């Protein structure tokens, strides 16, 4: 009886281990070319064993108005051919406000939209009509962010795109 229980536990453990390891490429269906994942996190200050404060990213579970959250989009080429002209487009939810200058993506050109994703341009080149007066667009006006990868993503490689937004 005891032996069976132990076996049961160890089987369970193994199956967990497999799913953890296999979380990325092999668990996803083989179709498609890129595995795309978005996580939302927030910063939390912790005090480590040496008494030093460290900022770590934790799952965004407690978020109140005024808090900043961090979205991280990862895209991995799970095929055996390069992916070209990779463009990641991310809408900014209506209750969120993009944090100026926070968009980050190695090897990418980052452009923004203020019209719901129709026209994209660099942050300084956009303008909006505010109560009939045209003014330069600000971070709070952005509705979408787009990362345009400068180079192809080789087979097996992964890219990342990240931005911060503040909950209104």
């Amino acid at each position: 009886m005891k032996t069976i229980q132990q076996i049961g536990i160890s089987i369970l453990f193994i199956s967990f281990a497999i799913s953890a390891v296999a979380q990325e490429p092999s668990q996803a269906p083989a179709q498609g070319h890129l595995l795309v994942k978005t996580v939302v996190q927030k910063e939390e200050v912790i005090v480590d064993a040496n008494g030093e404060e460290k900022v770590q990213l934790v799952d965004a579970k407690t978020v109140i108005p005024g808090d900043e959250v961090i979205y991280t989009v990862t895209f991995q080429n799970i095929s055996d051919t390069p992916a070209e002209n990779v463009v990641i487009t991310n809408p900014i939810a209506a209750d969120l406000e993009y944090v100026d200058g926070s968009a980050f993506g190695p090897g990418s050109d980052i452009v923004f939209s203020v019209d719901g994703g129709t026209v994209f341009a660099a942050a300084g080149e956009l303008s909006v009509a505010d109560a009939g007066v045209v003014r330069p667009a600000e971070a709070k006006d952005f509705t979408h962010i787009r990362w345009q990868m400068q180079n192809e993503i080789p087979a097996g490689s992964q890219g990342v795109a990240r931005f911060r937004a503040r909950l209104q």
Partner: protein
Amino acid sequence: MKRLTHMASWFARLVASATVVLLSQHAFAAGTDAGTTISNQAQVDYAVGGNAQTFILSDPAGNSIPGGASGALPTEFLVDNRVDFTLVESGLAGHTPVTPGQNGEYVQFTLQNTGNATQDFRLVPSNLLAAFGPVNALTDTEVDMSALQVYVDNDANGLDTGVDQAFVDELAEDGAVDIYIVANADVTLVNGDIANVNLQAIVADPGAAGLGTDTVDDFGSADTAGIDVVFAEGGALGDGILDAQDGFIVSSAALSITKTATLISDPFNGALNPKAIPGAVVEYVITVANSGAEVAENIVITDTLSADVTPADPIEIDNNGAASTCTQSDADADNCEITGVALSIGSDAAIDVDPATTLTITFQVTID
């Protein structure tokens, strides 16, 4: 469809920004409602071998199936409850005047829910001591109002003690409500007394009719996937409790009474160095000075004379320059009467003494 949604949200933003200009004082209130789910889904477009491929949507656990029907889920989080509110004195600026013995006077406060969820609030009124320090620049004189009661103007029609509840029920985001502390001024209070009071508001859970239980702060405990509560009143980490102060100032008449006796004459010396011998005339002057802030009404002065003197008429009354006379020797109703040896003035018609004025009664007696 998605495009339409974006357009709508963009339009909403435009409207919102226009509104902010008009109502800038509310710009930071409330925020996104607690319980709102914030969704995000990235789209990746790409090409292979020069041929554009069908886009792939993101998923919290990863998705590689192209197209909009891939079953990929948006990445979501739930907006938690930021408890935030303000409590300030409102209504009459400064202290509320009361007179000793007056019941049902009130001080007013306003509570505004600047958090992002509907809340109840438990209310606790209390008397303050001088040690608290000044309120409206007035320090408590260590006297208390009695029978403190709280009423909340939930129906926004002013104080209505028959209807108003003693707690704040279901105050929506951005909502504000007036709160009254109603109290009685004991008759023992004197002019110039200051009775400061404190109103404490404790955030409570909304929901069913009636006052909910005190809200519990989830700060420091493990984040949950549900709606957590963070006390953040005034924008800083808080305790879900706010206090505000106001006070009552006792406004009353303050009377001081003096009586002087001056020998006027005697039968032998006349007016020159008279002596208090039988037949001598003595002038009594009674002054009633009101140094308070209110009119002293219905003053009746009763002077019990010695059985060895006989009062003379007329009795002169000077009330702040308004002179009159009356007689005690007859039974008319001219405000001066004598009953036995008790001379009373003011028993027939009201004598009122205004603040900062003096009533002077002058009469003479003869020593028997």
